[in-house]
C-alpha cells in the first residue's frame, strides 16, 4: 500500500494490467499465430504443417473465393441498411414516447437476443417453410416472385439476409437508442419555436444528433454480419454461402488451416477497407467520437 501511495502514477497500470494482459495474450498473440499459420502448408497424410512462406494461400484465398467474399460484404451491407431503417423508428419511439416505461420497452428489443442464436434461426426455418404462412401470404399478394425464388423463401438470398438482419438488430437498435435518448428535448422545441416543421426539426436537429449512435450501430452490425455463416448455412444454399462458410469448412471440415488462416486475414482486410471507405464518407472524428 505504501508503494502505491508514494507512486500514485502506478495505480492505473496495475488496474489495467490483468485485463490488458489477457487481451494481449488471447487476442493479439493468437492473431500472430494465425498469421504464421497462414503461411504454412500441410502434409495431407499425417496432417503436419510446415512453414514455407506459402503466399499462395493468400493468392488462392483472394482469387478462388471472391464471389463469397463480395457476397459477404454485399449481404452485410444490405442487412445493416435494413437494420438501420427498421431500428431507427423503433429506437425513436422508445426514446421519445416511452416515458416511464422506456426501460421495459427496451426489453422487447433485447429479450429475443436471449433465445439461443441457433434456436432463433431454426425458428425462422419453421416460419419461412415452403408450406408455411409467410410463403402462402406472399404468394397470395403476388410478392413471392420478388422476394423468393422457385416459389419458396428458404434457400434464397432473401432468407439469408432476413436472418442476418434479425439476428443483429439489437446491435443496431441499442446504440441508436442510447444516442437518441440523450438528445435534449428542448433542442427540438427550440427548433419548432423557430418555425421548423416537425419533419424539418427531425432532419436538422434529431438526425444529426443521433449520428454517433448510427455510426456505432452500423459498425457493430456490419462487422459481425460480414463474418457470419450460420444464417447462410441454415437458411441458404450453396449459391448464397459467404466467406464465413468457406473459412469454417476449411478449418473444421478439411483441416486446411493454412488456407483458412489466409482467408481470415483477407476477410479482416476487406472489412477494414470498407470501414475506411465509410469513415472517409462520414468524417473520421465521428468514428472515434
Amino acid at each position, binding site marked *: 500500500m505504501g508503494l502505491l501511495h508514494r507512486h500514485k502514477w502506478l495505480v492505473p497500470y496495475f488496474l489495467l494490467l490483468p485485463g*490488458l494482459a489477457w487481451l494481449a495474450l488471447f*487476442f493479439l498473440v*493468437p492473431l500472430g499465430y*494465425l498469421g504464421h499459420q497462414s503461411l504454412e502448408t500441410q502434409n495431407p497424410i499425417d496432417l503436419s504443417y510446415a512453414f514455407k512462406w506459402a503466399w499462395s494461400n493468400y493468392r488462392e484465398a483472394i482469387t478462388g473465393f471472391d464471389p463469397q467474399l463480395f457476397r459477404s460484404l454485399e449481404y452485410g451491407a444490405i442487412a445493416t441498411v435494413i437494420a438501420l431503417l427498421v431500428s431507427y423508428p423503433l429506437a425513436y419511439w422508445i426514446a421519445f414516447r416511452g416515458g416511464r416505461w422506456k426501460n421495459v420497452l427496451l426489453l422487447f428489443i433485447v429479450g429475443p437476443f436471449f433465445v439461443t442464436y441457433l*434456436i432463433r434461426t431454426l425458428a425462422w426455418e419453421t416460419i419461412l417453410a415452403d408450406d408455411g404462412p409467410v410463403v402462402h401470404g406472399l404468394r397470395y399478394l403476388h410478392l413471392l416472385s420478388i422476394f423468393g425464388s422457385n416459389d419458396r423463401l428458404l434457400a434464397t438470398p432473401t432468407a439469408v439476409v432476413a436472418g442476418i438482419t434479425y439476428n443483429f438488430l439489437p446491435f443496431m437498435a441499442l446504440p441508436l437508442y442510447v444516442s437518441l435518448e440523450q438528445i435534449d428535448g428542448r433542442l427540438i422545441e427550440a427548433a419548432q419555436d423557430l418555425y421548423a416543421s416537425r419533419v424539418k426539426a427531425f432532419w436538422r436537429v434529431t438526425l444529426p444528433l443521433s449520428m454517433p449512435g448510427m455510426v456505432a450501430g452500423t459498425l457493430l452490425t456490419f462487422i459481425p454480419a460480414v463474418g*457470419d455463416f*450460420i444464417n447462410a448455412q441454415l437458411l441458404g444454399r450453396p449459391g448464397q454461402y459467404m466467406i464465413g462458410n468457406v473459412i469454417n469448412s476449411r478449418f*473444421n471440415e478439411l483441416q486446411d488451416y493454412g488456407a483458412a*488462416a489466409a482467408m481470415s486475414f483477407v476477410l479482416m482486410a476487406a472489412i477494414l477497407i470498407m470501414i475506411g471507405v465509410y469513415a472517409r464518407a462520414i468524417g473520421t472524428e465521428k468514428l472515434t467520437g
Partner: protein
Amino acid sequence: MSAVAQPVAARPRSRAAGRALTRARRELLTIYALLGFAYLLLPVAVVVLFSFNHPKGRFNYTWQGFTWSNWTNWDAVPGLKPALELSLEIAAIASLAATALGTLIALALVRYRFRGRAVTNVLIFLPMSSPEIVLGASLLTLFLSFSFFTLGFWTIVIAHVMFCISYVVVTVKARLIGFDRHLEEAAMDLGANEWVTFARVTLPLIAPAILAALLLCFALSIDDFVITNFVAGQEVTFPLFVWGAARAAVPPQINVVGSAIFAVAVGVMLANVLVQMRRARKGAA
C-alpha cells in the same frame, strides 16, 4: 341560413381534420413500433409454441398436437442436461472473471491519466469489431501450437473471458463517466481514506453497471456458438448440442430450454428495471 352556417361549420371540421391527421401521423409511428415489436418477438413465440409440440417423428417442424411432457421431461434427451450444465458453469466462471478484469480497466480509463490511453482504447475496441470466426480460428491456432493447452473446458473459458472483457469495459465505463465525484469527495472530507471510499461509496453506486455487465457476459457466454465450436475439443456446450441436434433430430426439449433461458433472462431484467423504477419514483417523491 345555410350560407351563414356553412363557413362556421367548415372551420371546426378542417381543424378537426387537421388534428386527426396529426394524430394519425403520431399513431403511425406507434403502429410501426408495435409491428416492429411483433416482428422481433415472432421467432420467440414460435420457439415457445413449438416447445409444447407433440411430434410423432424426430422433427419439430410441423405442429402435431399439444403436450406438457416436453417440459416435464426436459432432460429426457440424452446429452441435453450435461450440455446445459456445462454452458451454465462456463458462463458463471467466465462472466465473473471478465467482469472483474473489465471493471478494473474501466476504472483506470475513466479515473486516471496514463500513457497509452489510445492503445488501450484500440485494444478494447478490436475484439468487439472482429468477426467471431477470426477470433475462434486464431485462438484454435494458438491452443494447437502449445501442448500445454488441451482443447476443452478451460480453453472455452479463456475464449469467453477474452471476448467479454470489451463489453464489460464499455458498459461500466458509461456509468463511471456519468458518476458524480462529489459524493466521493464528501466521503473523503468526512475522513474516509481512498480504499474505504471506494468500497462504501463508489462500488455500491456503480454496482448496477457492474451487475449489468455481469449479466451481459453471462448472456454472451451461454449463447456463443462460433468461437466455442473452434476451441471446445470434445466438450459439448448447449449451443454446440443444438447445432449437432439440428443435423439429426430437433427434439422439442431444445425449445423448452431455449424458452426457459429466455424467460429467466427477461424475468431478471424486468425485475431489475421495475425495482429501479420504483426506487426512482420513491426518490422523486
